[in-house]
């Protein structure tokens, strides 16, 4: 029985495998969220907004579960760099904003009562610091020595996934700004912030796409899945990071910009 997806070195099989650690992880988040909702009921007139937030959080949680569980989780942990990249794109760029948006603003009120936590959070979610943390995690977890070593064990694989989720939550915090009283950045700065990530992601794309040989032993020495060559798989992963990652980030900048433009128009009484 495996608790978390990690590299096994055995031939890939499309037979379903159970990963109870993943289920437990998802269930714990779901239980925590439901407790948050119970302790912070929707105020009168905010039911529609609350439903939107719940839908967002549930979508994020379902996507997170799909990324971590069989088959994507298992393929990404030990067989295909492209599946690993799909996990990263999902857990790093799609799931966190959905989760953050899904948390009701009132749920953050207790944080304000704890100065140490507020200071820590303010430091970590400073846009410059957040960019540094997110990209440091991306670079470290994509370093061959680290990835090959950690993905060979369930704990190591879990730590990579956890590092992605936590650092991505930090990265997206200044954009989503879940605490309305503290709008961290002007929307146009948010657009610039997201665009900066487009540029900062380039080194990994170049590294994976243009390497002469496979860089990760875990994928190069894994039994092949459907005959996909290790180098083609790695190049696909690099291109996914560039194309799909850019698309997601571009979509995010568009949403931020339109949201801001609509609010501006509304404030000007044009809508």
């Amino acid at each position, binding site marked *: 029985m495996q608790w978390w997806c990690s590299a096994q*070195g*055995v*031939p890939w099989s499309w037979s379903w495998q159970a990963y109870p650690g993943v289920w437990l992880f998802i269930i714990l988040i779901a239980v925590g969220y439901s407790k948050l909702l119970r302790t912070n009921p929707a105020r009168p007139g905010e039911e529609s907004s609350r439903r939107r937030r719940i839908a967002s959080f549930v979508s994020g949680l379902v996507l997170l579960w799909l990324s971590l569980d069989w088959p994507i989780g298992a393929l990404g942990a030990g067989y295909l760099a492209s599946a690993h990249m799909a996990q990263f794109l999902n857990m790093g760029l799609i799931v966190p904003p959905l989760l953050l948006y899904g948390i009701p603003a009132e749920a953050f009120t207790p944080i304000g009562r*704890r100065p*140490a*936590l507020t200071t*820590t959070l303010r430091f970590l979610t400073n846009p410059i610091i957040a960019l540094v943390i997110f990209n440091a995690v991306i670079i470290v977890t994509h370093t061959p*020595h*680290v990835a*090959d*070593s*950690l993905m*060979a*064990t369930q*704990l*190591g694989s879990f*730590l990579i996934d956890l590092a992605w989720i936590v650092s991505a939550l930090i990265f997206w915090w200044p954009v989503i700004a879940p605490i309305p009283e503290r709008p961290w950045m002007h929307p146009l700065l948010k657009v610039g912030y997201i665009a900066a990530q487009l540029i900062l992601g380039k080194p990994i794309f170049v590294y994976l796409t243009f390497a*002469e*040989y*496979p860089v990760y*032993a875990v994928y*190069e*020495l*894994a*039994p*092949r899945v459907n*005959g996909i*060559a*290790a*180098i083609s798989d790695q190049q696909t992963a690099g291109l996914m990071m560039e194309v799909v990652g850019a698309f997601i980030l571009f979509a995010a900048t568009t949403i931020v910009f339109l949201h801001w433009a609509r609010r501006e128009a509304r404030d000007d009484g044009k809508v």
Partner: protein
Amino acid sequence: MHTTGMKKFVTLALTLAVIAGAAGWGCDRNDADSAASRVRESGFRGITLDRPTPKVDFTLDDTDGRPFHFMAETEGYITLLFFGYTHCPDVCPVHMANLAAVLKDLPWEVRSRIKVVFVSTDPARDTPARIRQWLDAFDPSFIGLAGTRAEVDRIMVSFGLPTAQIQGGNGTDYIVGHASQILAFGTDNVARLAYPFGTRQADWAHDLPRLARQGPDLRITKAVIAAPAGGGEVAALYLEIANHGATDDELLGVASSSAKRAELHRQVDHGGITTMEEIESLAIPAGGTVHMHPGGHHVMLLGIEHPLNPGETVPLELRFRHAGTRNYYATVVGYAELERALESTTPHAVHGGH
């Protein structure tokens, strides 16, 4: 209270990260260190064998059903020998795929000096057609051999490898335990390196060109035929062969589709009488160049069937003891031009592939 709890959580997370990271880093760095140590000691990333293993002369059927004489047909080549089976779920396909991926990107002069020989350890299921189909998925030039279990076991033992073992399963559903290393034989017919499972493409790319450079590195810089006067049936061929490698070699023979046979000759002086005598081979020392010329060593082309005219090219097949067979083209020149052609620095040979 909450701050304490937060501190505990952060401490626990950091501890876990450090433990996992340290364990992983340690393991991987050991591998990297041992690889680096191997490179420092031998110049290769492959594992140096405790005892160099000479080639064993065995014959098995290839995938066309023809007998393949291992010793003779790999003579002069870097030979990578692997014992595996086509139903292998992990080691064999990964090894073959990684090797093939690197071979296809090697320069032709390196790639053409390497032969990959796969011997099936699963005679019951590996038919010649299946072996061929399986190898073609990696590289159609890979040579596939099959024999009886007893034959293959005997060959494996003679190379110092454990025999293959059938493990588990029923009927035709079983796995075969077998040695996972690829033995690398140099052009001197001795394996000093083995490549276990886990050899990366970057390792192959590092070692294969070095292995290929170890043997004789022959270059034909001139190949000139003096046109026989009056359309005669005998002509002299003069070669200039440079050996840029680290190993001596010998020219064993020459063949051409334009002549019935060819002989290596030298001119000797017996008390003022100059005669020609046939020799069995001509040494080509490492780092040296052999210049054939009138009055010295040359190749006699005998039984020329069609008149050779100046300006024509004639295909040649040169057979070397270590470098194997090389194909070239020689240029026919008139006697008047012979001396100038042999002195010229312009090669009078056209590389014709192998």
